[in-house]
Every structure is written in C-alpha cells, then in structure tokens.
C-alpha cells in the first residue's frame, strides 16, 4: 500500500480532487493498476492511500509525472491561491507538493481499507459542487449516510446524530450564531424540509428492487450500505469523520444538518431526548 501525501491547502483541495484525483484514479481503477484507494482531507494536506497492483516504482513515477503536469497546467491557480502557504510548502516539499510513502504491511481486514467509498464520494462531491452545496441536498446526503450506519429506527437516528454532534466543539458565540441560522432555515423552509425528509425516509425504507432504476439516494444508500455489511464492530464516529472530510463538509454545516435531523425526529416521533 502506498501513501500519497499532497501538500495542498484545504481550500484548493476540492478543485484538485475533481480535476486530478477523480479522472486519474478512476482510470487507474479501470485499467487495473490499482485495486482501491481511500482519501482523507486535512487542513494543509490530502492523504491518499492506494493499493497498487503494478510495481510501486513504476506507479510512483507515473503518478508523479501526471501530478506535475496537472500542477503546471494549473500553476497560476494553486500559486495564487494562498501565496504564503504555497511558498512555505514549496520550500518544505520541493518535489511538487507530493510525498509518496511505501507501507509493506497493511491489515486488509480493516473495514476502513476494504470498505472503500472514495470513488463514490468523489462522484457525490461533484454533485455537491454542481448543486453549489445546496443545503437540502446535503441534508439528504447526511440522512442517507446515517441510515446506512445502522440508523434503522428513529430513536437510533437520534442517538447517532447526538453522538456525532457531541464530537464537534464550538465557541458559545459561534454556536449561538449557528442555532440562529438553523432557526432561520426552519422558519423559512420547515414544511418543505420535513416533507423532503419524509419522502426520503420512505425511499430509504423501501425494498431494493433490482428491476427498477435506482434513484440518486437509493444508489448511494446501497453503496454506503457496504460500509457496515458483515462488520461486527463499527466505529461510527470515525467512519462519519472520514465521510465528512471526503466531502469537505465544515463543522458548521454538519452541526446545522445534524440539528435539523434531530429536530425532525424529535417532533415527528415525540421523543424527549433531554
């Protein structure tokens, strides 16, 4: 397994993911040069874990060349993005922002390696960018993901959402602003949002019929369903963290989305979740 570290600021990663990682690695998957890959986003770097089927040396050179070509073609964008940060990174990692580490031993039974959803998330990221991160769309996506993590009953959704919400810490003033934002969203669109979540919940609960064409969310559901399939111990927090990072959801977005999901279930099923 190879670990490719791209030293790119978070703000530029989405573009790089869609323009470089998605086309390049989809092609490598298709040609069989890699068997799977997993990516995780961090503030100043993006880490890609790749299972190669080709000789590592050949693969390393191939990927470095492609990356260099892409970087040169978009040099102005990346260089201008945050000059200070980019210059610092250049000094630190002169080989075109990339560092490739080789790992000899990897536990392939680890569900985080074997249940890779990176390619799917790249497709979803594209949808999110195309929809300019439409809030309702994001809400439905998170709802679908929670369902797949085992949120089969309303109370379990609530427990999961609460648990994930507790992993995010804000300054009290930020939290106040976010709560005000949630109230404002609900005041303006409460009926529409709840109707949409009702529809989605029915859609998620419906039988999977192989003959019928899957909808966007039922397709995602089936893909994400593999995450927990036959896996006894699931670290929901860690899986969710990876999901968020891959789709570049900010803490604020996730806070608002989770709060609305909790609100939806508390009202619908009258659960007192104090």
């Amino acid at each position, binding site marked *: 397994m190879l670990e490719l570290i791209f030293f790119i600021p978070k703000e530029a990663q989405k573009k790089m993911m869609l323009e470089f990682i998605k086309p390049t690695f989809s092609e490598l998957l298709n040609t069989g040069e890699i068997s799977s890959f997993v990516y995780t986003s961090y503030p100043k770097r993006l880490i890609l874990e790749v299972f190669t089927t080709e000789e590592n040396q050949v693969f390393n050179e191939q990927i470095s060349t492609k990356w260099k070509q892409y970087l040169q073609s978009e040099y102005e964008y990346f260089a201008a993005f945050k000059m200070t940060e980019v210059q610092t990174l250049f000094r630190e990692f002169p080989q075109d922002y990339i560092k490739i580490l080789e790992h000899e031993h990897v536990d392939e039974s680890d569900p985080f390696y074997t249940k890779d959803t990176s390619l799917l998330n790249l497709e979803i990221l594209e949808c999110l960018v195309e929809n300019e991160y439409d809030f309702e769309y994001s809400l439905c996506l998170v709802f679908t993901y929670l369902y797949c993590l*085992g949120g089969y*009953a309303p109370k379990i959704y609530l427990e999961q959402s609460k648990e994930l919400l507790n992993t995010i810490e804000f300054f009290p003033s930020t939290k106040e602003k976010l709560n005000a934002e949630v109230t404002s969203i609900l005041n303006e669109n409460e009926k529409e949002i709840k109707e949409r979540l009702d529809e989605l919940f029915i859609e998620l*609960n419906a*039988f*999977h019929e192989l003959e019928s064409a899957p909808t966007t969310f039922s397709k995602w*559901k089936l893909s994400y369903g593999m995450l927990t*399939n036959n896996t*006894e111990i699931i670290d929901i927090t860690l899986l969710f963290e990876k999901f968020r990072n891959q789709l570049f959801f900010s803490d604020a977005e996730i806070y608002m989305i989770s709060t609305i999901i909790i609100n939806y279930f508390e009202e619908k099923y009258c659960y007192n979740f104090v």
Partner: protein
Amino acid sequence: MKLKNKISFCTVSMNRLYHLKETLVRNIEDNIDYENIEFVLLDYNSNDDIKSWVTNDLKVYLDMGILKFYSTNIPETFHRSHSRNVVMKLATGDIICNLDADNYLGKDFAYFINYQFSFSGNIFLTSAFADGSTGRVCVKKDDFLAVKGYDERMSGWGFEDDDLYNRLTMSGLKNVKFNNSEFVEFIWHDVEESFENDINVTGVSAMYIQHKSSFQSTLLFLFQDGKFKYGNIEKPKAEEDAVNTELVEDTWQTGTFTKQNNAHISLTFTNDITKKIHIATTEATKNTVTQDAFIRVTDSIFKGRLLLLLTSLENKKLYKNKFASLQTAPNPENWGETIIQNLSKSLQSC
C-alpha cells in the same frame, strides 16, 4: 407516515398462554412505533384460557387492528410445520416473521427487519444463534409461498427450520443472520416443554432401550392406544456427542404390541412381521449396557432425552437424505390449511 413494507409477526400457541402472558404485550409495545405491522396469533386448539385472556387483556390491540386472533379446534396434537404454515398464510404482511411464543422481539425489531430488506429484497433474515431464537425467520411472503413453506412431512421438533432455510437459499435468496443481542432474547425452559403437545410424543406410555454398544442402541416406545414405534439409533462416530445421534432407518418402524407378561412384549409390525422382545428387570440409565434385553426407562431426564430423539430423528433423516435437491416442500395442495375461526372479528363485533 406509512412505510411501504408491512411486517407480520406470526405466533402459534398450543397451551402456551403462560409464555404469551410474558412476551406478547412487550413485543407489541416494543414495535408499535413502526406503524405498518400486525401480530397474528393462532390458537392451535389450546386447553388453556387463551381466548378469554386475549378478549379481556388485549382488546385494545384487537381494536387497533394490530393484533389478529385466529383459532382452530381441529388439531388434537401439535404439528410444528403445519401450524406455522397456517399462521404464516393468514398473515397479510409483505414480510412475515415466525415468532415463537417464548421469544422477545426487542425494541424496534420491525424497523430493523425493514432496514435489512431495504438493502436487498433477495434475502431472508434468521437469528445467528443456535438457541431459543433459532426459529425466528423473516421472509417475504411471496418467497415463503414460492417454496411452499415448512415441509409438513416434518411433524416433529427440529430441522424443519433448517430445511426451510436451506430451500430458501436454494431458491436464490441470501440468508442474512442477525446477532444483535437485543433481538434474540427468549424465555429459558426445558427443551421437553417445546414438544410436550407434539404429535409424535403424545400418548407415549412407556419406553425401552436396548444398548448394543456405546454408539448403537434400539429404542421402543409404547403408546396408550396399543401402537408402538421402534428403531435403531447410532452415533456415526463413537466419540461424537449425543446431539449427532441418527436413526439408522429412514423412519421409525410402527405396529401394535401385546404385553405377554412382565418379561416379554410381542410386537407386530405393519408388514406383519412379529417380534418378541425380552425385558430386563433392571432400570435403564445412560451407562447401562446389555447386549440383548430391553430395559424400561424410568429416569425422567433420560426419558426426556429419548422423547427428543423420538420427535426429532425422522425430521433429521428427511433433512439429511432427501432435501438437498428440493427447492419447494412436497406439501399437499391444501398445505397450511385447516378450519379457522377469525376471533378478531367476532371479538371486535362484541
């Protein structure tokens, strides 16, 4: 909000009111949040007070339509496969689930079932444990009907579940097993309780054993109506546990008997062959070995073990020998049918 998939929990009771009083209300309350469910209860000619209990204590659920109560007074003894077929055919759900009277479903099990079926319609769900929850199976009603349900030739205790699961698998479904501890609770009781009304053991008046070796014996069961069942049993390997005991012949041999005196019983088999057997004076224990004489079994634990063999070994033999290539049960045309009274309606109209 109505969910697409209706789920039916199907329970048969023959004199199991004492279990139902512990489990049924809790099962309903634990799953009532999932709106699209029904509990179908079949009274399989019980002698207990089940009707008045349902009428008085469960009226609220009958009125809500969440509990459906049926009764039949035809069967004189308990037939596991037939009774389950009857109740599961009465169910109106998209997904039907066998729920033994001593089982607890657990909170939100209905949601869990629907969740599992939402990922793939081509599955059936069973408990991952070989214990009191083994018989819990959730299957789409269409799939259950397609394989013609439980095989009604398997009247006894055991293997009728394995046979059904086998045939559902062979029909192309994937067996998803759940091991969530909250969904597999049940009331512990002696295994003998499971077959006390069983068609195979009802009326047994005496039982005898002839030990041939440490892994071969002959069993003789005498019935009150003058009939007997006789058969050779063995453990395929001497060192194997008793659970691996098998019937040598495909079925128990049957006929009528005459007690000539305390030392001899005369057996007339259905093929007119007669056999005179010698009864030893000592009582049988598990460790007694005699080469020729039969010993009367009086130890209650040992008797229970032998009754278990009586009710289960034919099922086991059928399961092992004949079913590997069958996808549908060779049931009669009218499988899963009997004369049924819909007590929910009559009670609701009172």
